[in-house]
């Protein structure tokens, strides 16, 4: 092969390179997410545990309803049956794990070097990962929260105790619950990018989401304020029936929305920063 044909070949290769499109990175992250079995397992755990526990809670109240006193029936919170904590512990755990695994698994396996050798624009890769993860988790969250609410309230409606989306606090509870999934996943992603190993990332995520809220004294005004600013307590506040008072240092509704929004924003910024700065 002569030098001129080599040059022509080289020039030809350069000419066919298409423009770098962000949607190619979205497609790549989409393929990555759905080519791991753990994704399907986590999604199934989220959907099944949320629906199962809300149906169970609603059926229990349905069964016991005739035995409840008039005061108890009057103070009954039907929204609580849609999003019972015992079921949502699994949802929070699984959503956080999906986020942590999405990036820590890539770092821990070394795949990240292969990824960045194919796409040197690291921040764009991180942005695509965040966007795909957040969107998928939001869709799963909307379906999970909507179906849980619908099933539980349909069961309670039989006793005349069910809420509809138009009732005070009902729509707020469904929206906050749907958003909790991407919130937890992005917090997991932040820890995953920071720690780069799957197990520590899941432990840290679970610690922040589920264990840390238990560490604060709710009688004290300041520790209660920190507690209220944590993501899961913020969600609990937004899901609560507007007429129920939990403790004297109850967070405000707008404050809880801000807390719920701030955590994933901070986690995403941390992830973007460390992915850009640290050597893979």
């Amino acid at each position: 092969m002569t030098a001129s044909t080599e040059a022509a070949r080289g020039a030809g290769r350069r000419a066919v390179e298409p423009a770098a499109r962000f949607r190619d990175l979205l497609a790549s992250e989409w393929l990555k997410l759905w080519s791991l079995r753990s994704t399907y397992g986590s999604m199934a755990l989220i959907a099944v545990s949320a629906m199962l526990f809300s149906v169970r809670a609603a059926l229990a109240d349905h069964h016991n309803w005739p035995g409840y006193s008039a005061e108890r029936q009057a103070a009954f919170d039907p929204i609580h049956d849609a999003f019972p904590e015992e079921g949502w512990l699994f949802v929070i755990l699984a959503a956080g794990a999906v986020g942590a695994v999405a990036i820590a698994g890539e770092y821990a396996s070394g795949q990240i070097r292969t990824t960045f050798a194919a796409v040197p624009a690291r921040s764009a890769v991180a942005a695509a990962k965040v966007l795909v993860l957040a969107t998928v988790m939001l869709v799963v969250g909307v379906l999970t929260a909507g179906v849980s609410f619908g099933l539980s309230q349909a069961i309670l409606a039989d006793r005349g105790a069910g809420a509809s989306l138009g009732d005070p606090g009902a729509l707020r509870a469904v929206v906050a619950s749907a958003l909790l999934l991407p919130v937890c996943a992005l917090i997991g992603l932040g820890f995953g990018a920071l720690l780069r190993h799957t197990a520590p990332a899941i432990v840290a995520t679970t610690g922040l989401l589920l264990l840390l809220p238990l560490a604060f004294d709710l009688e004290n005004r300041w520790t209660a304020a920190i507690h209220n600013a944590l993501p899961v307590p913020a969600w609990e506040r937004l899901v609560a029936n507007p007429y129920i008072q939990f403790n004297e240092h109850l967070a405000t509704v707008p404050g809880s929305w801000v807390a719920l929004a701030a955590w994933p924003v901070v986690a995403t910024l941390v992830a973007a920063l460390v992915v850009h700065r640290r050597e893979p």
Partner: protein
Amino acid sequence: MIEIRDLTKRYGRTTAVDRLTLTVRPGHVTGFLGPNGAGKSTTLRLLLGLHRPTSGSTLIDGQRFAARRRGLRHVGALLDAGDVHGGRSARSHLRALAASNAIGRSRVDEVLGEVGLTGVAGRRIGGFSLGMKQRLGIAAALLGDPPTLLFDEPFNGLDPAGVRWVRELFRRLAAEGRTVLVSSHLMSEMEQTAQHLVVIGRGELIADESLAEFAARSVQTQVVVRTPDPAALTVAVREVGADVGTTPEGALMVTGLSPTALGDLAFTRGIPVHELITRSTSLEEAFMNLTADRVDYRAGEHR
């Protein structure tokens, strides 16, 4: 074309690459040799922008690779066959990579066929042998049909047929006018693969020349001689300024004298000679001597 200028990379107090200047040209396979820890992998990571240099620069086809938005059409790289998520199938892994660079699915099936993994494309990579992972890494490097290819220790884990296939592939890629840089810590692998050699030790450049030049410069001719009076011949050889040692079998090994000169020397001194054999050191030995000298020199300097 790869251009490395004054490249230095330090991790804390360890200098992995030390003022390395090097040009890798297209059209032939360049072997990148050095003992373990010589800085080969670090150099390749610096080339790909995965690590940031302490100082100096690297250019691939006149551009910093890290400044490119997409890489596969410019550089194909196999850094470590293990740099893959074991939970994905070979096909999914390649499809995700291809998608990020706007490369179609048909190209994925093409490279799977080229490396001989079509039959196991649906299996999870976690269950692959090292040899299969090397093939997958080579497939990934070929995806974008790039003008520059980097391979770090690609022969590890391959069976003899696989080694042969990889050699022929590298030579074919180079013959197509591409720049092909292949690292190894074994000269025996490079001898039959590379036309050009770059040798580094302790992060510094030791040799940068064609395989033929390297052989001519580094390979020594020795004469093995058996005599009933080795003591007398040793004295005689040293008197004329040549080196002499002993083989494990008890024969003398002379460096720096042609067989003719040695035969004449023995004759004039009246020393009987029973056997006279010339032998050349292998490229492997030459490489070992070259890098061992460098390592010893460096170790001595630190003390």
